[in-house]
């Protein structure tokens, strides 16, 4: 969503939609539980949910947009949590090992499945997603989305229907998040409503802030760093949240562009040595 200039605090909702599509498929149609079908279901359901929520959210901007997206994601959380009969409530759903285009991994233990074939599936999924996102960012649609971010007024004036394009951006982002949720559900092997909680959405926002939201690769770097930081912090101290929170304060105050933004301005500083850029990276 960074290309639309809007901050969503509710991306846990689409992550959960993706994951629960897999989960429900596994629970109710175990005989049809294949990887490709599960992914298709996740993409379709996250498309529907993000289209619906996006339709409501894009009517607002800035903090109102963030709060509304947060509220709607908590709605998903409540549904997943309360509908015990269908979703297992707080117990969640166990995810079996799926078939992959007819190939069965019967008798394989999850750890071996994850370290072996699934690792490559995941890597493939990641590469395809990144390439697809990169293509969208550089396409006319991507440019139009960035245009609505830079100047809503001008975008209207050259004939871009700003709300509609925000909606497109929202849905694209929702679908990718849904895909992430689905892929993750196989890794974890168990899903609970917590993934639609605002804490989880907050973690996504944190990753983006850490990595830097002005550079395409930023969120990827952020996600990697966050995962290592969290693991490291948990092993060192039980007050790991303090470390996470501390780095967040540090980031917001000193590195508003995140890690990649910092590297970028450092790079520019070395190349050009322009005092103007020095000021902007410090300030």
């Amino acid at each position, binding site marked *: 969503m960074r290309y639309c200039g809007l901050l969503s605090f509710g991306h846990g909702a689409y992550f959960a939609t993706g994951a629960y599509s897999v989960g429900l498929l596994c629970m109710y149609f175990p005989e049809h539980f294949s990887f490709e079908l599960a992914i298709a279901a996740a993409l379709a359901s996250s498309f529907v949910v993000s289209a619906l929520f996006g339709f409501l959210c894009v009517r607002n901007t800035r903090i109102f947009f963030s709060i509304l997206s947060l509220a709607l994601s908590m709605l998903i959380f409540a549904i997943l949590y309360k509908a015990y009969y269908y979703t297992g409530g707080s117990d969640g759903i166990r995810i079996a090992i799926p078939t992959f285009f007819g190939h069965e991994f019967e008798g394989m233990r999850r750890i071996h499945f994850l370290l072996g074939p699934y690792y490559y599936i995941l890597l493939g999924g990641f590469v395809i997603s990144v390439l697809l996102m990169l293509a969208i960012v550089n396409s006319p649609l991507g440019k139009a989305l960035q245009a609505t971010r*830079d100047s809503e007024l001008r975008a209207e004036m050259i004939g871009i229907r700003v709300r509609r394009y925000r909606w497109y951006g929202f849905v694209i982002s929702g679908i990718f998040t849904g895909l992430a949720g689905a892929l993750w559900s196989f890794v974890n092997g168990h899903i609970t409503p917590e993934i639609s909680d605002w804490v989880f959405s907050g973690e996504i926002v944190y990753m983006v802030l850490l990595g830097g939201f002005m550079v395409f690769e930023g969120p990827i770097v952020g996600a990697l760093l966050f995962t290592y930081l969290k693991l490291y912090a948990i092993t060192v101290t039980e007050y790991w949240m303090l470390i996470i929170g501390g780095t967040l304060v540090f980031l917001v105050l000193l590195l508003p562009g995140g890690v990649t933004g910092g590297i970028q301005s450092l790079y520019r500083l070395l190349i050009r040595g322009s005092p103007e850029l020095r000021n902007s990276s410090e300030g």
Partner: protein
Amino acid sequence: MLEVSEIVKSFGMTRVILGVSFTIEPGEIVSLVGPNGAGKTTLINLISGHLFPDSGRIALSGKDITSASPYRRIKRGIVRNFQVTQLFEELTVLDNVRNCIFSRNGQLRRFLRPADSYKEATGEAMEILELFNLAQFRDETGGGLSEGDKKVLDTAMAFALKSQFLLLDEPTSGVATADKFKVMDIIIDAIKDTGTATLIIEHDMDIVRDYTQRVMVLNQGLILANGTPDDVMSDKEVQETLFGVSNQDAS
């Protein structure tokens, strides 16, 4: 042809436009002058659809557009710029103009193929940049340009939409005095080539005289004078309104 007839607009108790009528023929370049608060920008907003008149009628080529949304009017061919430049500051200069062309061609929804691979749109964008002397900045971001160049880019973007009717709200404000004529030369040459009807709000009387065929003077919500620059400038009442009584002799 743009026809504005008897439009009235009030904001609460303040009456801003008190029954203004005029027409602008295809290909005509008209300037709109008047003291601060005369209602010039309000008039532009009424024509572009950002405000709706309380009464009166606006028609383009005989079709009533009085209550059409700004989006509809753009599709019909009324395009404007803004007094305060509105650019896509983080996109490159090329992308700023190319977005306008994609929008005009209805290609904005395309994804997957990179924008650079649309050779026709890119080529046309470069032509427009060359026309407006901005080609050397194609890879700079919009926000990185000087104030004067920003203003030119702003006009180039309005121009790229190839409208029938162009509304320019102070296209040279913020441009250094020495460059004003150069900027106007570029803009007017480009407009004349395409025969776009244009309404320009301008404060500089030299520019009005040199570049526009007709001038309308707006004062306190009414059109005070409407004619060739020389006729209008020699009008005593106009001189009093625009320059104040004390300057009467000087002009």
